[in-house]
């Protein structure tokens, strides 16, 4: 366990190097919220109704704001492509010869990244949420708090496993980086990042929520918005755990099978 703690610490220090660029970047990531507010105002005005997809205007804007929180946990920028490059260029050798699991190594790396991200992003997030407080539905009910936090943490593990599983495809296909863009586009929509999945026709919503992606963003966000009772929240947590278990299994098996095919290119 000590070695992974070291990985965590080194990566932590590394992340603190680019502070200013980071702070500005975090703020600017919220810029599209302006378009969201403008667009949905026009849509609600045009529709002439209070609720669209069981969400009021304020809730709709909050949805997009809270998606930012869920994404802060679940998104793994560059994870799948790092794995793909390591496999293709033969960099994986370095890890295979060490008494260290590649997957667990990266898990710690990501935990460190996320820890730094939360510390540094807290201020910009707090400011943006303060400015937009008029839209927000208020805090989730007291007894749901632990579940909310748990589901965000599980969203992190789920995001990690989904991206690992995709990256593992590199063992079988030489050039997967371009497929990753397709995957990212699909994930963007299927996870409810582009719009709340409740806006879809019922049959489509039901099919899309069968996939793991909705458990990464859409469901946790709905819970944070107070749209779920205790029973539904429990189901969500269970669903997340099941998907994490399934994907961990896929990663474990895929990793073992993949290593057998691995040719370790390069000198």
């Amino acid at each position: 366990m000590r070695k992974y703690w070291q990985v965590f610490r080194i990566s932590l220090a590394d992340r603190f190097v680019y502070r200013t660029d980071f702070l500005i970047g975090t703020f600017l990531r919220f810029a599209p919220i302006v378009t969201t507010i403008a667009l949905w105002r026009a849509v609600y005005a045009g529709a002439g109704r209070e609720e669209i997809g069981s969400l009021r205007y304020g809730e709709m804007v909050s949805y997009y704001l809270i998606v930012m929180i869920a994404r802060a946990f679940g998104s793994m920028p560059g994870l799948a492509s790092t794995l793909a490059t390591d496999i293709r260029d033969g960099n994986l050798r370095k890890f295979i010869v060490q008494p260290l699991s590649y997957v667990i190594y990266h898990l710690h790396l990501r935990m460190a990244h996320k820890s730094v991200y939360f510390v540094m992003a807290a201020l910009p997030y707090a400011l943006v949420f303060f400015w937009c407080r008029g839209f927000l539905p208020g805090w989730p009910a007291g007894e749901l708090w632990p579940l909310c936090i748990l589901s965000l943490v599980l969203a992190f593990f789920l995001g990690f496993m989904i991206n690992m599983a995709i990256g593992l495809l590199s063992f079988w296909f030489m050039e997967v980086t371009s497929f990753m863009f397709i995957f990212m586009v699909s994930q963007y929509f299927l996870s409810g990042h582009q719009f709340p999945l409740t806006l879809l026709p019922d049959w489509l919503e039901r099919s899309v929520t069968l996939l793991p992606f909705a458990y990464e963003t859409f469901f946790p966000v709905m819970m944070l918005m107070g749209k779920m009772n205790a029973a539904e929240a429990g189901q969500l947590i269970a669903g997340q755990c099941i998907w994490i278990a399934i994907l961990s299994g896929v990663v474990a098996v895929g990793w073992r099978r993949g290593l057998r095919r691995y040719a370790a290119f390069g000198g």
Partner: protein
Amino acid sequence: MTAVLGRYGRILFCFARNGLVRELSFRVNFAVTVISEILWLGMMLVFVEVIFRFTKQIDGWSNHEYLFLLGTHFLISSLFEAFFFGNLQRISAQIRTGDLDFVLLKPANTQFLLSFERISYTALANIPLGIILCVYAFSQLSVSLTVKHVAMFVVLVCSGVVTLYSLMFMFSATSVWLIRQTSASHFWFYLTSCSKYPAEIYKPMVRGVLWFALTFVFPVLIVANLPANVMVRVFEPYLVAYALFIAVGLLLFSSLVFNWALRKYRSASS
């Protein structure tokens, strides 16, 4: 004059040929990128369909009028990406690493060389997608098609591309001072994507200040909105004149800014 044009024509042809050779060595990548662009557009269309399930119009834009705007946006951004985006994005790195020296030494206009060096054939392949969407949306609207309107549309699409080009070229030139601008480039991306939606939606924001700023100060809103307006909504000659004025004015201004920035360029390395 013809000799100069001929020379630049030959350089352009050379760039285009090199780009094609590069593209052909990654054929699968080409196909996959095109597919993912189609997917992206498809997803956007799903989003539009979802929105219009609930409303008949967005600030006066009906479903098909908006689809036409989206098609125009896609067409303009594909044109921009095909010819300029990658080139302009690289300028910042060229300034940081000092590679700009090699471009400065060549006996041709620096802005020209920097702007046209690589053509992205993948983005070029997206252009028909934008046109198809426009044609489909237009066919669903009961608007009459006249030569004058189409000609205006073409001119405005071109001036939209020039506007985007000039803005981003100026932006890239600022890396002489800013050196690193990774977060700034995200912001750039966001600003240009504003133009995907009807300009009217921004009017109620901050008492119209935002709409004003994005139309007159940093004119990204007119890029796709104007040509779409001309074709499927209202034809206002003064807006067309304004768009042309902006495009030409910004192009000249961007060249001035660049030459000014060049004087501050310190090169890099030894």
